[in-house]
């Protein structure tokens, strides 16, 4: 499991995260939600070892700050928000970057399968830089998937860390990408995703951590966290939570009137 304790991050004089505790289980999708600037991406960067932080983070009982890059790469992959590439790689070449050296039949199959999984079959020979932002994001997802294709290896869960994986996507691809995350978790892997869209969060997450001003307001099942009171407090606006058939999914329309903040 992922266990982050007492996480503190400062940028200069500003505390971005204040003594945050955060946990995630394999076999579940854990969403991190919160308003802009609340520190949700910073939290993801702290628990993936990307920014210097106070406190400890362990992943599958491995201290991520002491672990070597290749040790971590073997058990978890990280999808950044956006990935501009320096050189004209083709889509196939980008997806390959997640793999160790060499092209074998098995690797070719893996790359083809990953591209198919994100709906980009036939894009292999296209130049990455010619693609739209949403297509680039899905190419990166394919790269990340090839890195940890099997969600469980030798009884140990592997992890996907996704930073706003659907931010550049249309509604159809949003559902497709979230389903990939859902399937990965259902097969025993762990998924931690920073999410902007609360509806998708309600649909796909097992656990939601609500971050506001660098603190965790709540971390629990969606029904416990996505409430009128907590969301209104976190987002400083009126939010009403509804349920609707057929799936009983929560809908979160934003009430027009701003609360006095």
């Amino acid at each position, binding site marked *: 499991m992922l266990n982050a304790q007492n996480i503190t991050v400062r940028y200069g004089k500003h505390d971005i995260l204040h003594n945050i505790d955060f946990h995630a289980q394999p076999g579940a999708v854990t969403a991190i939600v919160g308003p802009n600037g609340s520190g949700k991406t910073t939290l993801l960067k702290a628990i993936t070892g990307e920014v210097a932080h106070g406190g400890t983070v362990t992943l599958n009982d491995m201290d991520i700050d002491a672990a070597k*890059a290749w040790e971590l790469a073997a058990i978890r992959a990280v999808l950044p928000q956006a990935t*501009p*590439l320096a*050189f004209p*790689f083709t889509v196939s070449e980008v997806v390959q970057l997640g793999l160790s050296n060499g092209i074998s039949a098995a690797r070719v199959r893996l790359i083809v399968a990953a591209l198919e999984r994100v709906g980009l079959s036939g894009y292999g020979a296209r130049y990455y830089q010619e693609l739209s932002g949403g297509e680039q994001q899905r190419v990166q997802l394919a790269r990340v998937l090839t890195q940890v294709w099997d969600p469980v290896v030798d009884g140990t869960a592997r992890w996907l860390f996704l930073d706003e994986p659907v931010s550049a996507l249309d509604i159809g691809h949003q559902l497709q990408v979230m389903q990939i995350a859902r399937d990965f978790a259902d097969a025993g892997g762990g998924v931690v995703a920073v999410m902007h869209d609360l509806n998708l969060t309600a649909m796909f997450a097992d656990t939601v951590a609500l971050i506001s001003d660098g603190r965790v307001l709540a971390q629990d099942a969606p029904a416990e966290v996505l409430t009128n009171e907590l969301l209104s407090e976190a987002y400083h606006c009126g939010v009403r939570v509804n349920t609707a058939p057929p799936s009983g999914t929560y809908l979160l329309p934003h009430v027009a009137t701003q609360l006095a903040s």
Partner: protein
Amino acid sequence: MALASEIPAKMTLDGDRSHAANRLTFVLLIVLGIAMLGSLAIGASGASLWGALWDLATGGELALRDRVVLWEIRLPRTIMGAVVGAALAVSGATMQGLFRNPLADPGLIGVSAGAGLGAIVAIVLGGLLPIALQQALGYYVVPLAAFVGSWATTLILYRVSTRKGRTSVATMLLAGIALGALSGAVSGLLVYIADDTQLRTLTFWGMGSIAGATWSKLFAALPLMAATFVAAPFIAKGLNGLALGEAAASHIGIDVQRTKNVAILAVAASVGAAVAVSGGIGFVGLVVPHLLRLAVGPDHRYLLRNSALLGAALLLVADIISRMVIAPAELPIGIIMAVIGGPFFLWILLRRRGILDM
């Protein structure tokens, strides 16, 4: 999620250019071989490579003139040209990968300028050294000083741009520009106080040439110039990862800091030694990786290797031209490279303007 083994087999991968890159390596090996033969065969004297080879093959005695020209002049010069060209091209490709910028070049981050400053200091102020030291260093005083210059530049650059074990590429680029300007200014000052003889030496050294290559000079510079060749296989995958950015590179298992350390040290050694023995030969580190990226893509596992071969061949061809244009005199090779390389590079930029041109 389906296991990889359940996925239907498909052996060819669209957009994978590794096979093309391997084929290009084979072609470039042949091209380099031809260029080396040409470099041995062509020159101001009438010595004939083929005649000498025939003499050797038939067990005949090699003429003294042929032995001196081929063995003492053309062969070390050929090897020197190939190694300098390869070192400059691989250093350029490595720096471009490290900075994620196709225009990054040892010239850009001040390493070449630092080496140049070292050489100019040696040429202008070398006479101030104690006579005994001058005699001890003898021929090596300029190469050594150039190497010290590139080394010092790299160390300062590294110290300025590295905080808590992490190198900021942006800071390094800016610091490199500042250091290059500083080296240029000090060099200019030294040129100003140089006497006429020194000025002539400086001018010819600065234009770049491998005409003075000897076995001893070659063996002195070879270990340093080879640093990037030795490092290349170990940093190629790291440089590929860095194309995604430092954080993403780390997430796919790249030891980013080690990749940067190895790349920086190797390039400093290679460029310092190359500048020392050949002066200012430009464009190789810029044009060669650029052409190869256009041809078979930016994967550094193939780019570094192919850059070495094409850089070596290109420099040899330029050197052959420099011997032929005003024979029996010679033009400095740096001029040839600039005359060929400058317009060629501009033409590429004009023809393929756009994102793919990176």
